[in-house]
């Protein structure tokens, strides 16, 4: 559920530009209509939705056998722009995309873990988001105005059902791999369970079969902050003042859950913004305060509060064991693919312990699963920052190692 864009902006010195041999280069997102009145998308809540447009990006070449496609999933605030540089950022109305490459540029590109010289990489924006795929800011055809809170309560299952339409549209029967971190990892898990015969490998990172009550509680507060913002107007704020304060609070809270105690200490160390003592005021005085303030301010510029509500709700609802009537072992019977589970030692939002439980549940069904607990101080954000170790493990899994 981390915010890759903000993290990447902190290490701009490392960027390889679009012309670098390590970059996926210039990319332009595409949009496709994948559900209309004739063929609406059925949803877990019992409703259907149409039309549904999906924004997606592709990298690399689909081979003749169409068996080298890898579908990557983004997390809470991400988009389809997983790697490379967006050519038409201004045209899309997303100027922030001009300053940084895609959110997993460290892992996706020529010669990288998800090697665009070998694989055809696909990433799409999830249903309910605000980056080109139909969401609460889209026009409800029945009302002639933005959905707002009348947007259906979508689920991870719905996202995956829509992604299946995209994969089919692209002419791909079987995916070489599905991969994602955080909520993206839950989409990978859901793919493996929902379409077992269409996935060869699943890479599930910094994720789990379900969010803990503790993790879920942060989403509860985030939504409360948004919904009690005076500008919220029951979600009907498009064209007027937006609930920025509520979304800011939600974002600041989120950031704390993406870090670890040690990573915060390393980064801020209780340092003061100005000088080395307290300023004796109630404004921004600690560096960590400035950081949270800055992150949240830049976030409200680029994210829709209603999308935040719907996406966090989908994360709350996700529970892979529901496919086994509440029994995770039973749910895991469905698995057919090879699976790699990667946890990070200091991630307390999706703790390694939970990933281990998933690994053992799969092993007890004699499924081909490997589980790795990467030592890291980065907390949940490690899935974006622990590049070398993660790349190595993913590469080993996707193509075997040297020998």
């Amino acid at each position: 559920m981390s915010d890759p864009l903000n993290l990447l902006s902190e290490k701009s010195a490392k960027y390889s530009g679009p012309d670098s041999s390590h970059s996926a280069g210039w990319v332009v997102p595409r949009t496709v209509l994948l559900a209309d009145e004739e063929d609406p998308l059925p949803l877990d809540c019992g409703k259907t939705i149409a039309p549904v447009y999906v924004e997606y990006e592709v990298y690399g070449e689909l081979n003749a056998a169409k068996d080298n496609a890898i579908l990557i999933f983004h997390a809470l605030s991400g988009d389809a722009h997983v790697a490379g540089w967006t050519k038409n950022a201004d045209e899309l109305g997303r100027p922030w995309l001009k300053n940084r490459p895609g959110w997993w540029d460290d892992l996706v590109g020529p010669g990288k873990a998800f090697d665009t010289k070998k694989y055809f990489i696909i990433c799409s924006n999830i249903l309910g988001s605000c980056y080109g795929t139909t969401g609460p800011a889209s026009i409800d055809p029945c009302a002639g105005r933005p959905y707002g809170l009348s947007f259906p309560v979508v689920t991870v299952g719905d996202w995956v059902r829509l992604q299946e339409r995209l994969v089919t549209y692209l002419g791909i029967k079987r995916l070489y791999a599905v991969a994602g971190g955080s909520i993206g990892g839950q989409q990978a898990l859901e793919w493996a369970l929902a379409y077992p015969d269409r996935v060869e490998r699943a890479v599930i990172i910094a994720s789990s079969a379900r969010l803990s009550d503790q993790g879920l509680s942060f989403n509860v507060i985030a939504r409360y902050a948004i919904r009690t913002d005076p500008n919220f107007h029951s979600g009907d704020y498009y064209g007027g003042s937006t609930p920025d304060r509520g979304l800011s609070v939600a974002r600041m809270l989120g950031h704390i859950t993406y870090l670890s105690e040690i990573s915060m200490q390393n980064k801020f160390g209780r340092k003061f913004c100005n000088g080395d003592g307290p300023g004796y005021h109630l404004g921004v005085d600690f560096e960590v305060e400035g950081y949270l303030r800055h992150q949240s301010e830049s976030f409200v510029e680029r994210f829709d509060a209603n999308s935040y509500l719907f996406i966090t709700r989908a994360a709350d609802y996700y529970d892979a064991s529901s496919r086994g009537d509440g029994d995770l072992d039973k749910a895991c019977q469905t698995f057919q693919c090879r699976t790699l589970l990667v946890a990070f030692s200091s991630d307390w939002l999706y703790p390694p312990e939970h990933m281990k439980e998933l690994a053992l549940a799969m092993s007890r069904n004699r499924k081909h699963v490997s589980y790795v607990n990467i030592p890291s101080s980065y907390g949940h954000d490690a899935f974006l920052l622990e590049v070398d170790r993660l790349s190595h493990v993913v590469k080993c899994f996707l193509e075997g190692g040297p020998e």
Partner: protein
Amino acid sequence: MKMRRKSRWDHDAIYEIIPERATVLDLGCGDGELLARLIKNKLVLGLGVEKDIDQVAQSIAREVPVVNLDLDEGITGFPDKYFDFVVLEKTLQVVNKPIFVLNEMLRVGGAGIISFPNFGHRLVVEYLASTGRMPITPVLPYQWYDTPNIHLFTVRNFLDWVGVNNVRVIQGLSLIDGKATPFREEDDARAEEVLLVVSTGLS
């Protein structure tokens, strides 16, 4: 963490002992080489447990399913008799709770395959007696302060455990003068290393 040596006589012996299509849990699977061969050539259904992350990555590269856990965590998660064989290839002497691991091995596995360096080997005992210092031999090449072997034991120590726990030794091999020979209790001072297949079952 696991002891790496040139001789892998026990490795090859374990490979021979495990029949085709068996289910195998390899505790401390290292780089996954044994399981990779078993899976490829004998269609074994295998799972490795390994603590060291670099070795885990090597196992994954060999397409061996492996879980990155401490041994006790890796074994408690399975039902009784879930595997035909549980392998402890030169691993028992490095674990924190050897008796716990042995008991779990007997619970989870139909049979246990254990290989270990014999601290009762003549050279080891003589080294200790003559120098007054912890033995350093080809089989035990470490200084006392950097050895991963935290629970060293002898063949007789192990047979004591076998005796009081109603465990049967189904088959065994001793490494004597660099050669694998059928296990005999009376060879206990001659065996550098020992490999035993044990079970609580009747068969």
